[in-house]
C-alpha cells in the first residue's frame, strides 16, 4: 500500500499494530472466548458439588469449602466468572449507552461492582478455609 487513498493521518506503524482507538485490539473478544471455555468444566464441577451439598449442615458446607481442592477451584471459578461477567456486561453498556459520560460511568460501575463481588466471594472462601 504505497498510496494512502484518503490522506489518513494514521501512521503505517499504527496500521500494522491494528489496535484501533480502543488501544486493545482483539483482547476483549479473545478473553470472552477463553473465559467461556474455562467456565464449562468449572461450572460442571460446581453443579455436581451443589448436588452433594443439598441439605448440608453448616459444618458440612464449611468442610466442603475448606477442602483445599474445593477452595482452589472455587477461587478459580470466582475469578473466571466475574471476569467473563464484567466483560460481558461492558459489551451491553457499550451497545446501549451512547453519550460519553454515562457510557464511561456505566462501564466503570460494571467493573467496580464485579471486582467488589469477586473480592467478597474470594474473601469468604479464604475465611472459611483458614478459620
Amino acid at each position: 500500500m504505497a498510496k494512502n487513498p484518503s490522506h489518513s493521518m494514521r501512521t503505517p506503524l499504527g496500521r500494522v499494530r491494528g489496535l484501533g482507538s480502543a488501544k486493545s485490539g482483539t483482547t476483549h473478544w479473545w478473553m470472552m472466548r477463553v473465559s467461556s471455555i474455562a467456565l464449562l468444566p468449572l461450572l460442571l464441577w460446581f453443579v455436581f458439588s451443589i448436588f452433594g451439598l443439598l441439605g448440608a449442615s453448616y459444618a458440612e458446607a464449611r468442610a466442603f469449602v475448606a477442602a483445599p481442592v474445593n477452595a482452589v477451584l472455587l477461587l478459580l471459578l470466582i475469578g473466571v466468572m466475574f471476569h467473563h461477567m464484567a466483560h460481558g456486561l461492558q459489551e451491553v453498556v457499550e451497545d446501549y449507552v451512547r453519550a460519553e459520560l454515562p457510557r464511561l460511568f456505566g462501564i466503570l460501575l460494571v467493573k467496580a461492582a464485579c471486582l467488589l463481588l469477586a473480592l467478597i466471594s474470594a474473601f469468604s472462601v479464604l475465611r472459611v478455609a483458614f478459620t
Partner: protein
Amino acid sequence: MSEPIDPRQANFVGRRSDGSVVQRPLSPHLQAYDMMQITSLTSILHRITGGAWSVAVLFLVWWLAALASGEGAFNTAQNFFGSFLGVLVLFGITAVAWYHTLAGIRHLAWDAGKGFDLPTVFATGRMVFIGTAALTVLTWIIALVAW
C-alpha cells in the same frame, strides 16, 4: 455499497484501517425486523440470559458470605433456598444458565467458522431450546434424588 440508502445508516460511517470510508452494518433494529425469528430470538435470549445470570451470581455471593460470617446467616440463606420461592428462583437460574451455556457453545462454534449456513443455524437454534428444556429437567431430577 448498496444503492438504497436507509436514513438510519447515514450516521453509520466508519473508516477502514487504511483510512477509506466504509458503511458499517447497523445492529438489528427493533422495529424494522421481525424479532420472533429463531435467529434473532436466540441472539436476544443469549444477551438476556447473560444479564440474568449476572444477577443470579448474587445468590452465590450471598451463600459464600453467609457461610463465612456464621451459622445464623448461613441458616437464613439455606432456609431461603429451601423455600418455595427459593426453589422457584433456583429453577429459573438453572434454565437461564443452561440456555446461556448452550447458546454460548453455539457462539464458540461460529467463532471457529462452523455452522454458518442457514439450515445448520436453524437446527442448532432448535437444539439450544430443546437442550435447555432437557438439561434443566435432568438437573432437577438429579437434584431431587440427591436432596
